[in-house]
């Protein structure tokens, strides 16, 4: 895995999006979900994506995660151009470069937590022995070393999400993507999960997290706000002035788009 990280030149962002567009064509109507997104994420960044419902956050997430392809613009992940990749090539990119954490956990219910964590490694062709070691290490890391053989239904929501995070880390991806990871959790477990993300950030991971919760977003390094398919704000959260700037942002949020745009500039 180490070699892959070396491939990426230090100054080259992990995510590079230029004028990305996404149109959903449902036959009757065309929905323009993304209307020209420019986004660049460097290695080691922790980005929170915020925005009202229907603004295009999940659409953007699916594009970054190579689950879906853009209808316009250019997108590179780790320097690799995504356009024109076949289904299986996209599957390989997801397997090697991306770790997903979903709001609904999306664990496979019939198999144990450990087997869930091992799943991406099976698709990635990791040998059984290495897989086993890695699963144990990851389960330990998310604090569930004693829950390896539990089925997802035998775990709490917070625990399930930890398993999902362990699974996301299995192939040591370039980037961890999370869509509303705390959406199905109570405040305290949500805070726990955020804590895990912060730990990962400290260890040098690149994270992109979608959230409705401003309190959580405020703890990330950078907030990207989307409205109606466009980025309306993209600002770093300074460690000290974080709280202040976010409350200002929250204020701007209420006041309207114009002032938000000004602040972003």
């Amino acid at each position: 895995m180490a070699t892959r990280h070396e491939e990426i030149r230090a100054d080259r962002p992990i995510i590079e999006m230029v004028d990305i567009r996404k149109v959903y064509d449902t036959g009757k109507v065309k929905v323009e979900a993304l209307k020209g997104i420019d986004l660049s994420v460097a290695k080691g960044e922790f980005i929170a994506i915020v925005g009202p419902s229907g603004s295009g956050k999940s659409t953007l997430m699916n594009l970054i995660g190579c689950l879906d392809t853009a209808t316009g613009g250019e997108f590179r992940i780790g320097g690799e151009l995504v356009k024109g990749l076949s289904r299986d090539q996209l599957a390989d990119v997801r397997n090697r470069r991306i770790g997903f954490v979903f709001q609904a956990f999306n664990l496979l219910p019939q198999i144990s937590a450990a087997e869930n964590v091992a799943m991406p490694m099976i698709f990635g062709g990791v040998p059984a022995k290495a897989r086993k070691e890695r699963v144990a290490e990851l389960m330990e890391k998310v604090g569930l070393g004693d829950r390896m053989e539990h089925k997802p239904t035998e775990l709490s929501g917070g625990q399930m999400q930890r398993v999902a995070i362990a699974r996301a880390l299995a192939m040591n991806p370039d980037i961890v993507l999370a869509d509303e990871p705390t959406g199905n959790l109570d405040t305290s477990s949500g805070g726990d999960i955020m804590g895990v993300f912060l730990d990962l950030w400290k260890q040098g991971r690149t994270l992109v997290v979608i959230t409705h919760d401003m309190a959580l977003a405020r703890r990330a390094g950078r907030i990207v706000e989307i409205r109606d398919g466009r980025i309306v704000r993209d600002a770093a959260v300074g460690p000290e002035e974080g709280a202040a700037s976010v409350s200002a942002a929250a204020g701007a949020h209420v006041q309207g788009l114009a002032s938000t745009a000004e602040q972003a500039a």
Partner: protein
Amino acid sequence: MLMLKEVLYQMLRDARSQKLRTFLTGFGIVWGTVAITLLLAFGTGLKKQMIKSTAGLGDRIGIAWPGLTSKPFQGLGKGRRIRITEEDLIAIRSQVPGLRSLSPEFAGDMKLRYGLKTYPVDVTGVTPEFGGMRNLIPQAGSRFINPIDMEKQRRVLFIGNKLAETVFQKEDPVGKTVILNGSPFLVVGVLMPKNQDSSYRGRDHDQAFMPTSTYRALTGAKYVSNFVFQPAKVLEMKAVSNGVLTSLSRRLRFDPADKEALSVWDTTEQFQFFEVFMLAFTGFLGIVGSLTLVVGGIGVSNIMNVVVEERTKEIGIKMALGARQRSILTQFLMETLLITGSGGVLGLLISFGICSAFPKLGLTDYVGDPQVSPVVALITTGILGVIGLLAGYFPARDAARLDPVVAMKL
């Protein structure tokens, strides 16, 4: 390892969520397998039994009787008796290509005396080749007539097993001397009991056989009662039979098309009919069984479609985690093959059970014992495999083609 475990687990889970459907489909596969296997097995058994009882008369032989001519030939009138000597037969032997064995039969009634009792016996003079052609297999410790017996006109007898019982009861006949029409004869062989469903001069177990040379010396007989011949290859029976007819007709001057001058019984004919009959029968049963399996296969395919629908979300998740299309395809194919495979194994087991229980019913003499031959098992397995693959392929392909985003949202 994980994959296989998961596939098994999924199969059980799907079976549980679709109880009735799985049961019906499984039943279809099991029934189809049992049908095909048993049909083929009974076919094999029946054929074996048929060969066995036909073999009682002989090993695919022709039997010829001289008679009266029914057509005029080269100035000779009809109604002439055709008489064949042993020398005639020896002479034509080399003229018929593909002829393996040939033996005259000189037949007559004689009086056999042993101790104080006398028995009327059908006696036939034959050559050593006769034993092989007519499946006269000697019991252990005894033998059939041999070439030295022939050459030296030895007074030796090969007797049927029933005759042996009547005359000697519990005694061992071999080495005993009997008096036949006033001359002493040494019993050298006793027939091994056999299944004989047809004959032309009484059953072999009631008869006594001696060398033709001895018979002719004893009785002064000149002309054969009939003769028996066998081609080297079964398929050449017709040609060899015609060859014998042609050679003899030339030598004895009668019309080769004259069916009454020399009438020939081709014992392979009934066998050929049986072959055709069995082929048609097996074909019919095979088609019925295969159709049942196909219907079962459609059922499996149906289940798999439902399964794919039910598990769309799981498929989406796996795709998000990096599963290639082939992994998804393989998973569902394996599952289908497992369902058809288990049904097939169950069907084969049931068939084996029936086949091994069958001999106890006591019907063996009529229809033989069904046998699940490796070929039968292989054919059934092959058909099942093809059906499983076809049934699984389309649902599996649909699964592999799902859009991950759409699939996960469900």
